[in-house]
C-alpha cells in the first residue's frame, strides 16, 4: 500500500530512441491508474521501469516516498501480472501462488493460510494441485493474479493482463479485477491498449502517445474534455468525428453548413483559419426525434446516409463527405497512430434505435452544438478546453495538461511520420518471445 510518484522519467534506448519521454505522474495510495495508448507508445516500458525490469535513463521513481531507481525488482515489493502470465510450468498452482512466500522463507502454516485465502478469493481451490498446462486461459490468468495478491505488495502492476483472453472472458475478468482492486484497496497500475478497459477500470487514466503523456484525468474528463486531437480520437468508440471547418467571421463553415458555436466552446480560438470540430457520434441525432426545445441549439442539415448499422439498442449511420486534402491526410495520419485506418472521410452518427432513417438516401440530421470541441489542426490542442473553467480540474491534472502540451509541441504532426516508423521497433523490443505450444 503506497503511492507511486514518477518525476520526469525518461527511457532512452541504446540507439538514442526515447521510448518514454519526461513523464511525471502521481499515483495516489489505493488508486487504480491506467496507462493507455496505441502500441509502441511506451506504456509497457514505463510499467517495467516502475517494477524495475527496465533501467531508468533519467528522472526518479518513488514508491511510498523512497527513491527506488537503483533498487532491484525484488527490493521494491511490487507484484506484477504479466501479459502472458509467466506462470512456472514445473510447479503446481499451489506452489505457483506460494512462490513469493517461499522466496521470503515464510513458515509453512502461513504459506498455506495465505495461499488458501488467495485461492478462495479467486475461486481456484479445486485447481490447487494441477499444473498450469492443464488450466484454461482464464484460470491461468487467475493464478497469475493469485501470485500477485498472495503477499502484501505495495502495489499491483498489470501489463495487458486480459489481451490474451477471448472477448467474453475478458469482460468477466475485467469486472473481477475491478472487484478485487476495490476489495483490497491496493494501489494499482494497469497497462492496456484497450480504451474500454481503460475507461471502465480506472480511477484515472493516463493516455500516452510516442512516449509522451497526453492527458491524465478521470475517464469522464477524458471523454468530455479531451486535451487534444489524439486523446479525443483515442477515447470513445466509435471515435469522435473530426469535421474540417474554416473560420468565417466568428462562425465556422463546414461541409454541412455554417455554424456558430456557443461562446464557451470557442474562447481559446486565436487566429486560426482552419479548425477541426470534434463531435461525438451521440451528439448527432435524427432530427425528427429531437425535442423542439433544444432543436435550435444545434445544426440541422441534410446529408446522404450510405450505410446504417442497427445494433438493437442503437444504430450507427455513416455519412461520407468531401474534405480538403491536407485535412484528410492529417486525419488519416491520426487514424494510423490510433491503430486503425481511415479509408474515407465520413461522419459516424449514433442514432436512437427507434429512428427509421432509410439507408442510401438523404436524411435530415441534427448536431448538438453545445458539446462540440474545437481543435487546432496544427498543434492538435483542444481550443475549447483552453477556455474551460480552470476550477474543473485539480492541480494534478493541470500539471498533466501542461505535460501533454509540452509533449505535443515536441512531437507535433510535422515529425510524426518519422517517429512512426521507429515506434514499431520499440514495440517489438517490449514484446517477449512467445514460445507456446
Amino acid at each position, binding site marked *: 500500500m503506497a503511492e507511486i510518484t514518477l518525476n520526469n522519467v525518461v527511457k532512452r534506448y541504446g540507439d538514442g530512441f526515447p521510448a518514454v519521454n519526461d513523464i511525471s505522474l502521481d499515483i495516489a495510495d489505493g488508486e487504480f491508474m491506467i496507462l493507455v495508448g496505441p502500441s509502441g507508445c511506451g506504456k509497457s516500458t514505463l510499467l517495467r521501469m516502475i517494477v524495475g525490469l527496465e533501467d531508468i535513463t533519467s528522472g526518479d521513481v518513488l514508491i511510498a516516498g523512497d527513491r527506488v531507481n537503483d533498487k532491484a525488482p525484488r527490493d521494491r515489493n511490487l*507484484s506484477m501480472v504479466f501479459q502472458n502470465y509467466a506462470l512456472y510450468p514445473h510447479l503446481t498452482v499451489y506452489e505457483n501462488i506460494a512462490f513469493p512466500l517461499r522466496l521470503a522463507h515464510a513458515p509453512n502454516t502461513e504459506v498455506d493460510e495465505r495461499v488458501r485465502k488467495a485461492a478462495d478469493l479467486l475461486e481456484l481451490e479445486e485447481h490447487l494441485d494441477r499444473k*498450469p498446462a492443464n488450466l484454461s486461459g482464464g484460470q491461468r490468468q487467475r493464478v497469475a493474479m493469485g501470485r500477485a495478491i498472495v503477499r502484501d505488495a505495495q502495489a499491483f502492476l498489470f501489463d495487458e493482463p486480459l489481451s490474451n483472453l477471448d472477448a467474453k472472458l475478458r469482460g468477466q475478468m475485467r469486472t473481477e479485477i475491478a472487484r478485487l482492486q476495490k476489495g483490497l484497496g491496493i494501489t494499482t497500475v494497469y497497462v492496456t491498449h484497450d480504451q474500454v478497459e481503460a475507461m471502465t477500470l480506472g480511477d484515472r487514466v493516463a493516455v500516452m502517445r510516442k512516449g509522451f503523456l497526453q492527458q491524465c484525468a478521470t475517464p469522464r474528463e477524458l471523454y468530455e474534455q479531451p486535451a487534444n486531437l489524439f486523446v479525443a480520437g483515442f477515447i470513445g468508440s466509435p471515435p469522435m468525428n473530426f469535421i474540417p471547418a474554416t473560420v468565417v467571421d466568428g462562425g465556422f463553415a463546414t461541409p454541412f453548413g455554417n455554424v456558430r458555436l456557443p461562446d464557451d466552446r470557442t474562447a481559446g480560438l486565436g487566429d486560426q483559419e482552419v479548425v477541426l470540430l470534434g463531435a461525438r457520434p451521440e451528439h448527432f441525432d435524427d432530427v425528427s426525434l429531437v425535442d423542439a426545445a433544444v432543436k435550435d441549439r444545434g445544426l440541422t442539415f441534410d446529408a446522404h446516409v450510405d450505410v446504417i448499422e442497427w445494433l438493437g439498442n442503437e444504430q450507427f449511420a455513416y455519412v461520407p463527405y468531401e474534405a480538403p486534402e491536407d485535412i484528410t491526410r492529417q486525419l488519416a495520419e491520426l487514424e494510423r497512430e490510433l491503430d486503425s485506418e481511415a479509408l474515407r472521410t465520413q461522419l459516424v452518427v449514433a442514432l436512437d434505435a427507434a429512428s427509421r432513417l432509410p439507408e442510401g438516401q438523404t436524411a435530415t440530421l441534427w448536431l448538438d452544438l453545445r458539446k462540440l470541441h474545437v481543435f487546432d489542426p496544427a498543434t492538435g490542442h483542444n481550443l475549447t478546453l483552453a477556455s474551460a473553467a480552470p476550477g474543473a480540474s485539480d492541480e494534478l491534472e493541470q500539471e498533466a495538461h501542461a505535460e501533454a502540451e509540452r509533449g505535443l509541441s515536441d512531437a507535433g504532426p510535422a515529425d510524426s511520420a518519422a517517429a512512426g516508423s521507429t515506434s514499431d521497433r520499440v514495440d517489438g523490443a517490449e514484446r517477449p518471445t512467445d*514460445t*507456446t505450444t
Partner: protein
Amino acid sequence: MREYSTRQRVLWIVGSLVIVVYCLFPVAWLTSLSFKAPADLTNRQFLPTEPSTENYEQILPGGSAADLFMPALRNSIGISLIATGISVVLSMFAAYAIARLDFPGKRLILTTALAVAIFPAVSIVTPLFNLWRQIGLYDTWPGLIIPYLSLTLPLSIWIMSAFFREIPWEMEQAAQVDGATSWQAFRRVIVPLAAPGVFTTAIISFFTAWNDFVYGISLTSTSAARPVPAALNFFTGESQFIQPTGAISAAAIIVTIPVVVLVLIFQRQIVAGLTSGAVKG
C-alpha cells in the same frame, strides 16, 4: 497430429522395423557371443549351442580377467560421472550467459566452441601425451577428465543455450518481481524449465566419456586410470590359442547396460515441451 492412411501407416511400421533391426543386430550378436563358451565361438551359427556364463564369470570378481576389468569399470564410472557433472554445471552457466547476455565476442565463443567440437581427437592425443607426462597428469583421472571436458563442453553449451533461449525471459522476470535474486531465479525457475536440456547434455557428456577409446588408450598405462574401452584391448585368452572374443563381448554387454538404463530413465525428461502452460498456449 495428422492422420495417416492405412498404406502410409504400414509403410511407416515396416520402415521403423527395418531400422530397429539394423540397429539392434550388432547388439544381439554381441549378446549371443557373450553367452558362447570359448570352444563354441566358431560354431557358425547365431545362437550358442549351449548357453554358458563362463565369459561373465571370467571378468567379474573371482574370474581370471577380473583384475583387468573391475578397476577399469571403476575408472570408467568415476571418470565419466565426474566429467559429466563438471560439464553440465559449466555448460549450464556458460549457456545461460550466452543466451541471456549481449557481450562482445559472443559469436566468437560460439564459433570457437563449434570448431573445438569438430576438431579430430586423434590429432591432439600426441601433444597431450607429452604434456600430461611432463606435468604429471599422465595415467590419472584428471588426465582423462580434462580432455573429455574439451570434447563435451562445446556441444553441451550449444544444446543448453538453445534450451535457455526457448524459455521466455518473462519467467525469470516474474521470479525477480516475486522476490527472487538472480541466482534464485536461475536455480528455481530457469534450471527446472531447462531440465530436458540438462538431461540431454548430461547423457551426451556421459556417453562421450564412457565410449571414448583414443584418449583412454593413449593417456593411461596402468589400471590406475584405464577405462573399460581401453582395458578390453588388453584382454587375452587363457592361452594364446584361445581368442578373448567371448570375454570382450561379455564386458561390452556389461558396459552397455548403464547406457541403456540411463536412456530409459531419462527419456521421459528428454521429451521437450515441459514449458507448455508457462505462457498462453
